[in-house]
């Protein structure tokens, strides 16, 4: 664990992508489904997942997409990234979606479908179950 950027406490199942996510162009604002054919999460829904991905990319207006999915109840429960980019950082901060930055080693150890308890107040914020 490197940094806690937005605090919170949730439990959920990991949806992991090896590719960065451009929220503006890749995520459907209403359904939270990845609509980019070239993305490894194509046709998967990010709703109510612990979304684990390297970082956000693209226009900072993508932060508004995060606001949209949160208002439409199709947002992830939390996000875990390798790198902090300001689109995801400000989008998560605005909508109060917990956001943690982790080391490269920890990132590679997380697998799709894992169950995670996340509590940013705890001394060990990510608990794998």
């Amino acid at each position: 664990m490197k940094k806690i950027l937005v605090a919170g406490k949730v439990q959920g199942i990991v949806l992991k992508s090896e590719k960065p996510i451009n929220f503006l162009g890749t995520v459907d604002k209403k359904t939270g489904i990845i609509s980019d054919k070239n993305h490894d999460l194509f046709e998967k829904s990010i709703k109510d997942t612990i979304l684990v991905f390297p970082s956000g990319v693209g226009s900072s207006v993508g932060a508004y997409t995060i606001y949209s999915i949160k208002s439409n109840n199709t947002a992830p429960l939390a996000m875990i990234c390798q790198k902090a980019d300001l689109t995801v950082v400000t989008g998560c901060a605005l909508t109060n979606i917990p956001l943690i930055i982790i080391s490269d080693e920890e990132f590679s150890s997380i697998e799709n479908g894992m169950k995670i308890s996340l509590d940013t107040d705890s001394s060990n914020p990510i608990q794998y179950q």
Partner: protein
Amino acid sequence: MDLTREEESALKGEQGEVMQMAYRILVATGEATDAEKLIPIEWAHLAGVNYNTIGDAGEEFLSGISKEARVKVKTTLNPMGFDIDNVSKYGLDENFISKQLSIRNSYETMGVTPSFSCIPYEIFDIPKEGTQVAFAESNAAIHANSYDNLKTNKESAFSALASALTGKSPYSSLRKEDTPNVTIRMKVKNPNELTYGMLGFFAGKVGDTSVNISGLGEMDRRQCKAMCGGMGTSGTCAKFLFGEGDSDCEKVDFDEKEMQTVHDELNTAEKGDLITLGSPQLGLEEISDLVGKLKGRSFKKRCMIFCPRTVKDQARKIGYTNELERAGCEILSDCCTCLTPLINKDDVDVVTTNSIKGAFYLKNSTGVDVNLKSLLQIVEDETR
């Protein structure tokens, strides 16, 4: 991050939901950029105004927070989607117009100056050297840091808004002494504004947060503006310094070959069916120069000119507006080449422009082809 007692209290929600949200954004941004504290800023410039970019979510969000939120410092903002004076001529749908007006209304309710301009540095007085500001528009942030002796992070739409509402911003690296680790050597002879735009685009890709540029010689205001526009488009770089930099800086040449690569990336057609000038928006000096170059000639095809409202008003008083309208130009204030719905790929296949920033967004967002030419070339080829 070290927060004052008042900042902690706002973060806990003791000063209302809007302040809590604003401080959450600032603290998260500060943590992400290794800032140790928040510092006061004197001027915020906001992005996230055009309905074309922020959509229904943005419109609803702004409408919601405007009930409570008020800006604490001087706050200006980016262009919106159209010019209300002549929007009826462009057949824009009613939904777009009403949502855009709602966005305008929300910002005005919050106390934002309705400048609708991406060149705040040309239409407002520049504060004294070293003043901390928070500019979200990329070309304006680079201009402020590199040319106006101001200090800003390259803000996101939300961090600049949070700064406007709190009067504060994270003390991130660009606000301190930032030493670039790469130097671009400008080698192209006889550069025009298009060359500087391409140089900026190239430098923005190479640089991280800042970059040295050597071999610039005497650069006028317009060339500097073109370079800032190009640089802000291609990467995360938010500042350039004039000169060679330290000896251990990596050196990268920008010569004919590198320029050709940028040109080939952005120039996708040899002939346009519409000309656009103004991305960043044109200032009075550029409008005066265009009138001088036209020498009574008229455009052979549609030519859209984008400028701030204050510039349009000044241009009208001096008589430039009459002259440009005589030459067949459409003069639009409050909006810009980038992402305006007034340029639609159903009506236009190729746009001719001298703007690198404009070219990038026309190609990638509007979805039309682009023909790049310098202003001098545009006047030579496209008027009679």
